[in-house]
Structures are given as C-alpha cells and as structure tokens.
C-alpha cells in the first residue's frame, strides 16, 4: 500500500476530500476500498499530520492566514472573558466577531478550481493538480487581486 507523503504530490482533490469528510484513506495511492489495518491507520494519521506541517511551513506564514488565526484567537479571548468575568461588552464583541467571520464570503472548492483554470487558460482536473500548486495559485491570484 502506497501513500501520498507530500503535498507536492498529493492531488488537491484528495486533500479537499479529507478536509470535507475526514477520511484519511484518501491518502492511499490508487485506493480501491481494501481493508486498512490498524497499523496502516496509525501511519495515515502520522502522514496527515506531516502533510499539515508541510502546509503550514509553505503557506502558514502568509499574512492572510496569520490574520485569520489571530482573529480566531481574539474571538476566543472575548468568549472566555465574557464567561469568566461575566463581561457583557466582551460577550457583545465575541458575538459581533463571530457574525463577521460567518458573513465573510468564501468560495467553494469547485468555483476556486474554475477560477484557477481560467487563470491558467487550460483545463486541469482536481486529481491532476497537486495541493501545493493549488494553494500557490490561490496565493498568487489573491496577491494579484490585492495589488490590482
């Protein structure tokens, strides 16, 4: 049984599947439904953690990503203050922040793929594009957007 061990080779289709379903068998190359042993399950978990680390090392330092994390962090600080100190203002801020985060427009996977394809000028399937390529394209597109 062979596994995808790098985001440079893992097709974005399977990365997205894992994020949507949590099913780590998507990391098995050419998987056709055979039995996954406990040992293999353990291996898959470790691989997935490593892939996340790879992802963070490549894209985690980007400002937009850091901002998101900081926003989430602040949201939880307010939530906790609201409960710990019974601070109504903190509760109000937390609710407002949550609302803001929920209302933020997010593109779904298929739309993002379509945008990338249009940008590339050719058709590429999600099974052909690696995870690294996908996020690099997104980074470049968003950078272009913010510059233009």
């Amino acid at each position, binding site marked *: 049984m062979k596994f995808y061990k790098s985001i440079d080779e893992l097709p974005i289709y399977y990365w997205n599947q894992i994020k949507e379903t949590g099913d780590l068998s998507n990391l098995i190359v050419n998987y056709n439904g055979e039995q996954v042993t406990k040992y293999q399950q353990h291996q898959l978990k470790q691989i997935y953690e490593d892939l*996340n*680390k790879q992802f*963070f*090392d490549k894209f*985690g*330092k980007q400002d937009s990503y*850091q901002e998101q*994390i*900081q926003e*989430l*962090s602040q949201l*939880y*600080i307010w*939530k*906790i*203050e609201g*409960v*710990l100190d*019974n*601070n*109504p*203002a903190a509760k109000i801020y937390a609710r407002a922040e949550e609302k803001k985060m929920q209302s933020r427009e997010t593109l779904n996977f298929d739309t993002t793929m379509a945008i990338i394809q249009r940008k590339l000028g050719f058709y590429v399937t999600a099974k052909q594009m690696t995870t690294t390529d996908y996020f690099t394209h997104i980074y470049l597109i968003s950078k272009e957007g913010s510059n233009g």
Partner: protein
Amino acid sequence: MAKKVTRKDVFENDIFTQVIKDAKEFDKVLKGIVKTEKQSLAETKKFLQSFSGNSFSDLQKFNKGIKEADLSIKTLNKAEKEQIRIKQRIKQLQSDQGKQNELLKLQLSEQRKAIKQTAKERLGLVSVYQKESARLNDLRKKYKDIALTQGENSKQAKRLRGEVTKLDAKLKKVDASVGQFQRNVGNYKSAFKGLGGVVRSTLSAFGFVGGIYVFANAIREAFTTIRNFQKENAVLAGVLGKTRAEIKGLTSDARRLGSITAKTSSEVTQLQIAYARLGFSQSEILDLTEGTINGSIALNAELDQTANLVGAVIRTFDDLETSDATNVVDLLSAATQKSALNFTKLETALPIVAGAANAAGIPLSSLTALLGKLSDSGIDASSSATALRNIFIESAKQGLSYEEILDKISNSTDQLTAANDEFGKRAAVSASILAKNIKETKELDLALQDVAGTSQRLADEQLDTLDGSILKLSSAYEGFILSVESGEGPISNAINSAIKGVTTLLGYITQLNKTSDEFGQQYEGSISKEVTSIIGGAKNSEEAIKSLNDALFETQIKLIKTQERLNQESGFFDFLNPAKLTKNKALEQSVGVFEKKIEILKTAISDPDAFLNNLEQATTKNDPTTPTGEPNPNIQRTDVQIENLKTRQEIAEKYREELNITIDALKQIGAISDEAAKEEEKYQEKLKKAIETNKAAEEELIRKDKERFEENKKRQQEQIQGIKNITTTTIDALNRRSEAQKTALDQEIADREQNITRQQELAAQGLDNSLAFEQQKKAQAEVERERLAEKQQRREKILAYFNLLASYAEQGNPDGAASKALAQVAIAETVAGFFAEGTESVGDNNTTKWRNTGTDDYIVAVDKGERIIAADQNKLIGDLTNKELSKLAYQYNQGLLQPKVQMINSNGEVVSQLKQVNQSLSITPSYQVNWDRQGNLIETEIRKGIKRVKRTLKGRTRI
C-alpha cells in the same frame, strides 16, 4: 392521663432536610465544576494572549485550546444554569418546609383553642352570654364564607345574615340593659374603619398590642401606599403631557398636603388629576389644590366634585384667577353657612347661571347671595338658577342692571305681575322673591365678601371630632410613609423619636428613599471634578476628547455590568433583607453615578471648553454676589431652603403634639386591653380552683376505692384460707385412709405372692391348687393400689390449687386469684406431662438437646419454633388440630374464653364450692381389702357414712 403533645410530636422539622442537604451537596459539586472549568478557561486565555502562530506545534496547541474552550464554555453555562435551578429548588424546599410547619402550627393552635373552649364549657366557666357571643362570631365567619362563595343574596347567606342580625341585636340589648356599649364603642375595627391597617400598625408600634406580625403588614401597607401614589402621579404626568420628573412640584405638594390636611397624598393627587383634566396648568393646580381641599371638607363634598365646581367658577368669572381659589372656596363655604345653600345646590345652580352672571358683570359673591336668598325661600337650585339667568339676560337686554329692575318690581303694588311683565312667567316668582329681599340679599353679599379663612375654620371644626382625628391620623401616616419614601425627613424624625421599635423598619425604608438619579446628583460635584482632571491632563483639545471618549467607553461598560448584576440580584422582597437591600442599593448608587458620569462626559466631549467654563462659574456659587455685583441666585436658593427647613420643623413640632394626643388615645385602648387581661387572670384563677377541687374529689374517690378493695381482699383471703384449712384437713384424712388401704393392698399382694409360690409348688407336685385364683387376686390388688395412688394424686392437685389460691389472694388480687391458680395448676400438670413425654418447643436453633428423644421410631422434621404434642396430651385436648389449639390458647390469653371453673367471688359461692367438695368426698366409696391369717379376704367398704365389712372365705363369699 394522655401524654402531653409536644411540638416535636407535631412538627416534622426534617421532612425536607435530607432533600435540602442533597441539593446543597449537588450545588457544591456544581461549584467545583464551575471552578475547574474557569481555571481551564483562564489558562486557555493566557495561552491565546501569548499565541504567536509562528510554529506548527503552536498551531496544534491553538486548535486544541479552542476546542477545549468551546467545551468548557458549554459545560460552564450548563453548570451555572443548573446552579440557579438548584438554588431555586433549595429556596422552594425551604419555603415548603416553612409552609408545612406553619400549617401544622396553625392546626395545633386551632386544636388548642377548641380544647380550651370545650374545657371551659365542661367546667361551666362559659356563660350563656359568652356562648352566644361566640356563636355570633361563628355565624359571622360562616356568613362571610358563604357570601364569598355563593353570593350575598344566596339563600343560605340570607338566612345566616338574618340570624346574625337577630343575635347581634339580642346581645346589644342585653349589653345596653346593664349600661355596656362595648359592642359598639369597643368595635375598634368599625370606629377605625378609615384607618384600617394603619391603626393596627401604629398600635403595634406603640407596644399596646405587641403583635410582631403587624410589622409585616405595616411594611406591606407602606409599599402599597408608595406604589399607589407613584401610579397616580404617573397618571397625572400623563394627563399633563409631562414626565414624572417634570411634575416634581405637584408631587411634593401632594405629599405636603397629604401630611397636613385630612386628605391623603393619593387623594390630593387625584384632585390634581381632576384639575389637570379641566385644563389647568401645573402652577394653576398648585394654586388651586390647598383651597379646594379645605373647601371639600367644609362643603362636605368629594374632592373631584369640589375641583370641578371651583375650576368651573374660576374659568367662568373673568375677574377670578387660580390664585383666588381659596377665596372662592371660602365664599362658597360661607354661603352654605349663611343660607340654605349646600354643595349640591351650588353644584347644580352655578354652572347654569355663572356664565350669564359673568357676562352681566355680576361678581360671584352677589350671584351666590341671590342664589342663597332664593334657596332660603324654598326655590330649588335648578329653577332659581334658570330664573336668575333669565333675569340677567333680560336686564342686559333692557340696558338696565338687574338691581334696577328688582327695585322697580319692589316698588310696584303687584310685585308678581310686575315681575312677570319684566322677566316672564318662568322667572316671575324668583324675581318677586328677590325684589322683596333686596336689602337682605345685599347684606348677604357683603357678608360673603368678608369670609377669608371660612373654609379652613369649617374644615378644622369638622375634623375636631373622633372621626376627623382618625382621618388626620390616617392621612398623617400616609404622609409619613411618603415623606420617608421621598427623603423628606422631619416627619420620619418625629415618629422616629417616638417609636423606637420601628427604627429598624424606618432604617429599611430610608434605604429606599433615594433613586439612582438622586445618587447621581449627589455625586455630580465629584464626577465633574474627575472629568475636569481628564480634560486638564490632556495636551490639547483633541487629546482631551480622546481621553474623555475612553473614559466614556469604560463607564458605559461598567454601567452595563452593574445593571446586569442589579437585575440578577434584586428581588421583590429585598426590603425584608437589610444586607441584600444595602448591597442592591450600593449597586443602584453605582448605576446612578455611572449614568451621571456618562451624561457629564457626553457634555464635556461635545464642548470641553464650555464645560470647563460652566464648571468655573458653578464654583463661584458660594460668593454672596455675582461678578456683576448682583445678589447670587444660589445664595437666595439657600435662604429659601433654610426657610423650608424651618417650616418643616414647625410641621414636625405640630405632629409631635398630635402624636402625643394619639399616644394618649392609644393608652386608653391599652387600658381596655389591661381589663381584658385581668378578666383572663380571673378565668385562669377559676380554672385553677376548679381543677384543684376536682383533684381533691378524685383523691377521695381513690382512697375509698382502695379501702373497699383492701376489705374485700381481706375477706376473700379469710374465706380462701378457711377453705384451704378444711380442704387440707379433709385431704389429709383421705390420704391417711388411702395410705392404710395401700398398706393393706401391699400386704395382700405380698400374701398373694406367697400363696402363688405355694400353689406353684403344689401344682408342681401334681396336687390340687388355686394358682389361677391367687394370680387373679394379686392382679386385682395391684390395679386397686394404682387406682388409690391416682386418687391421692388428684387430691394433691386440689390441695395445690387451694394453696396457690390462698397465696395469690395474699399477693393482693383475690378476684383474679382463682383463675390464676387454676391456670398455674394446669400449666404445672402440662409441663410435667411435657417433661415426661413428648417434646416441648424445639427452640430457636437446632442445638436443642432433646432432639431425637421420641419414644417410638418415628423420625419427624421439626422446624425452628415448632413443637410436638404427645399422644396422651393430644387425647386430652380431644384431638384438636394445632391450629384450633393455638387459636383456643390465644383466645384464653386474650380473656375471650370463660374458664369452665367458676370464679370464687363471694362468700356464698365459696361455701357452695366447699359443700360440693365435701359432698364429693363423702359420696366417694371407701374400700379396704385385707386378709386374715386363715387366708380369708376381708373387704371393708364405707359408703355414705355406712361401714360394710365383707369376709370372703376360701371358695365362698360371706357377709
């Protein structure tokens, strides 16, 4: 005597204790959970605050942290909700327990009352009069219940009402016949109707009744008064189209008038509402109110009716203003004194004629004088007013004054015709009357122009009665409550000094006398200083505004938090809990201060320079003159305040006097209570005596009973001893005879044995012999001997019975001795039987040593506590089943079975029994057998005292 019922027997104090304990335990656990979760959240918060997001491991920790935070928040919310629920539950349980206890207390108290009443009745301490009085009370209570449940006009209610009236009248008649009128005078409830609970509260406060429960009523009533007053003020504000803050002047005037007049503050507010509805402004209402109150009392009218009339008059006459209200009222009051007019007549007449009078330039005094004169002549108000209106209109039409026309009529010979000619038939009669009374009318008019203070005087006169005093007291009480509520102190001070016991109550209520607004005002100065320092500390106005905005934001947050706490912690009954009250008041104070601070900050933010300037001006308020040299209005205000204070002190002094009068009145009531207490003492004395007498009689009875018992015992003991002696002697004699018989039989048996041996030898030699005969005779002798032994045993039993009988009789219960002795003998016989054969109870365990001691080969299983009965014993009880036997034994033990042997209860019976014994002894044949040396059988028989001797020779019988 029954055991005394104690509180412990009745109140199950711990009925809810365990549940409450469990709930408290649960609460503890919840507190633990809350503490742990809070600690966890605090740690997460710390992590999040220092979280940089630079490493993947950080990110992992972050993910874990927020997941845990979500979980903790969820748990915490749940635990806190649960805590609230459990606290409410504990509270409810404690309240339930309290209710339960109160219910039982009430039941016990009712029961005691009923027992006391029954005891009184039994001891004859309740007279017919008292019984009838009690019945009247019961009937009244029943009537009230029925009236409420079935209606006052229901058949049963009517019947009860009839009974009540009849009985009440009957008792009043009896009272009156001996010069007692308590049924009316002492009926304080009706006398003090106007005061209701107020008097009860005051009585309690002065210690005359001493009921602590009234304290709670006082608080409740105080709050009802305050609430109603506030509600009415809200209505007034609504009618005037103002806020409650904007009608403060009217509110405080209502409080003032409520305190110093016979009308309550609430009634005064209702009067203000009536004027507001008539379209008068606030200042006009202030002018009108006091006069109207006096007028209402003087004219004996309702406040709103008086307001309508006075208002209408002032509105109608051009020369009258609201400040003339007192004059108007004085005039109208005087008119009712100096003429046949009354309020109703004025109320009817003035609206009809006032408009025309004003148009004709006729002043109110003249109009009232005219109406008064017509009323004196018996003309009804409506007709006279209509007639006067026509007179005024017609006069104006003719370009003359009504006086000139009246003069003309007066001078004519036929006044009625002249009047008819002048004013038409509808006004003719009135005009002719007025024409006849021109002089008197003028005099009355003049008199009505000099009536200042009439209404006040009349009002004072009317209130100088018991009812009036009570009304004033009621009103004063309400004024006191409202003054405490508003923070106006003199009355509360006066009462405080007089009523020490209510100090606590006043303390509580005083806590309530400041609103958050007032707190804000109180701290306005210090807040302004604080704001000034913020502005002063800034480098420029931009920085000042920023600092002010920061302070504003911070204050707003604090306000939200404090309000939230206040909402959570305040409850309806907080006023009963001084600690909570103080705490909540502190929160309320904070709210006031924060609100004020926000207000000041907002003002400062809008224009910091102007704010500073205003503040500077305000600090010069203590200077006697302004910079322009004019008197400082602030100082003037202070003077007014001093004046007000003086007035208040005067009012306080006045009330102290009234209070002293009230105290005297209450002391009288106290004296009546003392009388009642004396009566109660007398009753207790009687009760005590009755109990003592009863006790002595009881002791005498017991002593006599004891004597009788001792005599009886002695006599029976003697009888039993006699029987015993006779029996012992008889049995001894019989036993001696039996012994002799037994010896003879033994001898015979021995002889027979010798004979048998001899006959056996003869038989062995083949000679003739009587072996068979000898053997038969020996057997007979043995049977006879056994029979004798049995007889002797029976006699022993009889003797044992009498010995026991005598012994029990000596122990002190001759009546029970016979049965007891018999039972003992029977038991002894049975026991003896058991030990001889059969098996007693196998006991509680299988270690009993008589296991397997049966006389035959049967092996039976016997369970714990069971027993076996021997064959002969079984026969003795007639083969009864175990069930039947145990049932019989149970019935015997319970005294349900009459023993077959009659109890020896009297001398006659003893003698009879004794005769029977003697007879049985005498009719029993005595039989003695012996052999002489020749071997002949000698039988001696004594039957019925006759001795027969029978000698049987060998081979034949001879007598």
